[in-house]
């Protein structure tokens, strides 16, 4: 029996759909990302080809119709991300993947999505810049992730380190975007997107999927519905359900009115957007850590650099006697300053290896300003740090 997929909504309970099977798989990061997205309930993908992100789009084009979802290759990155906006407003979980130059093109729409509080997921498979740069790996967009969109308005950005992460964090990205009614970025790199390793898919019934809060869930009728009100995270009505929701990108009141502008209205609007995320940093942001109990020094990293870093940290501890702790930022933004401070009392040096000239080192420096003697940036451009290089540099600096 073939079911006509006429109306797509956010229902995620139909286990007869061809999800990836529980067990061990051997996939590249790109593929794991799409499989996670499908489990999360993604029903619309719109994309545009760009190296090294095209594989993600290709996997989506193959798999999505098998789930009754719809895939479209748009005419550019701007229309790709705009397609996600419309799809989300009509109730679908939607995603795109691009690389750094395409990410730049999407910034206006990201800004708009923050203001209209539109859930959607964007994967940035970072490559070096500026300009077309090269097609290898990088972490040069991490500041763009937070500050690339014009205007105020925080955003959530995750940094996967492995194929398992590409699967898990994509599901988490969708859940975060639905829960907080915000666009969510997955800041990955060419390294992880093209890497192939084992993926363990758990029992599908153990995977938690978040659906957006709708006014119907709170028994708010259309006449009383405030598209930007009721709660710090406003319930979101989907198109086609009789709620007559007006999405507006200008500064607005809780009921969506844009013509009663005042500085008070303006501030209330922006402050709520800000607090929605920043007040909930501890719930949203995740950090992983090891060896913090006895460390003299600290290494803070994210993305694929975390893999080199953990290798180096273990060797530094076992073979060089350097007591160095390891922190991996799973969430880049909102930056988990409080969590970081709560983990560290006093260290000598904080080493921050990044595949850029030093970006996350800035919020780290601010966060640990009174917890360390110095923050040492360890840049690498166009390639993943090797353990040898990290070890050599840390041994030299740690003994000073």
């Amino acid at each position, binding site marked *: 029996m073939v079911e006509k997929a006429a109306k797509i909504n956010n229902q995620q309970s139909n286990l007869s759909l061809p999800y990836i099977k529980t067990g*061990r*798989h*051997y996939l590249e990061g790109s593929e794991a990302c799409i499989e996670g997205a499908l489990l999360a309930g993604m029903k619309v993908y719109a994309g545009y080809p760009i190296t090294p992100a095209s594989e993600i789009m290709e996997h989506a084009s193959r798999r999505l119709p098998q789930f009754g979802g719809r895939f479209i290759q748009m005419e550019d990155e701007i229309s790709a991300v705009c397609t996600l906006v419309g799809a989300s407003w009509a109730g679908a979980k939607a995603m795109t993947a691009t690389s750094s130059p395409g990410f730049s093109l999407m910034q206006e729409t990201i800004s708009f999505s923050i203001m209209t509080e539109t859930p959607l997921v964007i994967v940035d498979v970072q490559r070096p810049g500026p300009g077309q740069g090269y*097609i*290898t790996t990088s972490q040069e967009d991490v500041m763009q992730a937070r500050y690339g969109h014009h205007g105020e308005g925080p955003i959530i950005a995750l940094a996967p380190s492995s194929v398992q992460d590409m699967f898990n964090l994509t599901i988490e990205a969708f859940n975060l975007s639905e829960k907080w009614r915000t666009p969510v970025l997955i800041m990955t790199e060419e*390294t992880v997107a*093209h*890497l*192939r*390793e*084992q993926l363990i898919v758990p029992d599908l019934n153990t995977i938690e999927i978040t659906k957006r809060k709708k006014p119907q869930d709170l028994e708010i009728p259309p006449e009383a519905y405030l598209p930007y009100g009721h709660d710090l995270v406003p319930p979101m009505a989907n198109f086609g359900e009789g709620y007559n929701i007006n999405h507006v990108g200008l500064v607005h009141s809780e009921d969506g009115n844009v013509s009663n502008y005042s500085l008070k209205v303006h501030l209330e609007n922006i402050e709520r957007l800000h607090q929605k995320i920043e007040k909930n940093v501890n719930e949203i942001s995740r950090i992983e850590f090891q060896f913090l109990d006895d460390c003299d020094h600290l290494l803070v990293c994210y993305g*694929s650099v975390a*893999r*080199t870093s*953990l*290798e*180096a940290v*273990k060797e530094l501890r076992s073979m060089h006697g350097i007591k160095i702790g390891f922190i991996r930022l799973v969430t880049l933004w909102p930056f988990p300053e409080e969590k970081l401070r709560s983990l560290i009392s006093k260290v000598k040096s904080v080493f921050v290896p990044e595949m850029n000239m030093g970006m996350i080192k800035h919020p780290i420096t601010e966060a640990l300003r009174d917890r360390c003697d110095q923050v040492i940036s360890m840049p690498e451009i166009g390639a*993943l740090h*090797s*353990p*040898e290089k990290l070890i050599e540099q840390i041994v030299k600096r740690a003994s000073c």
Partner: protein
Amino acid sequence: MKIDRLEIRIAGFGGQGVVTMGRVLGVAFTIHEGINSVNTHSYGPESRGGSCRSEVVVSQGEIHYPSVRKADILVALSQVALNMYHQDLKADGILLIDPNSVKDVPDDHVCYEVPAMAIASSIGDVKYQNSVVLGALAALLKSKIKKESLRLAVSKNVPPGTIESNLAAFEQGWTHIMKADMIIAKCDKG
């Protein structure tokens, strides 16, 4: 035999199936033997002729750093590849080359030869050379992975209609190395 961290690097030029070889090797370890492996590859922008490298890191423990630090096995299918990667081979590492494309071989490592292109051509097409190499690798790695796991991986990862030829190529690669194992193979020039 517990695998702590086994590092295999395959390098050549585009079109030789270097990327496929790495992937199939990874599938063999992870899917058919159940041991975690990480497979990465990098290549120049040209589809054919540019340099190309594929790596497989295998471990029964966690694999952090995803690339080769010091290879246990280097498969060099071009002179350029050997020149570039030979210094990253462990002192007791093994070199595997195609003697028809790699002539200049330093004598500081144990070196096996498999004329992969020639064998593949004799089966019907030079494109089967990657299965020849995989057969040779199966022999070199026989203490770490069952021949059948690699064979199965090959059969499941080649285009339909070519399974028989690829398996024949695999078998020849295997046999070639097994015969050579009878003698300690140390390559000398020429």
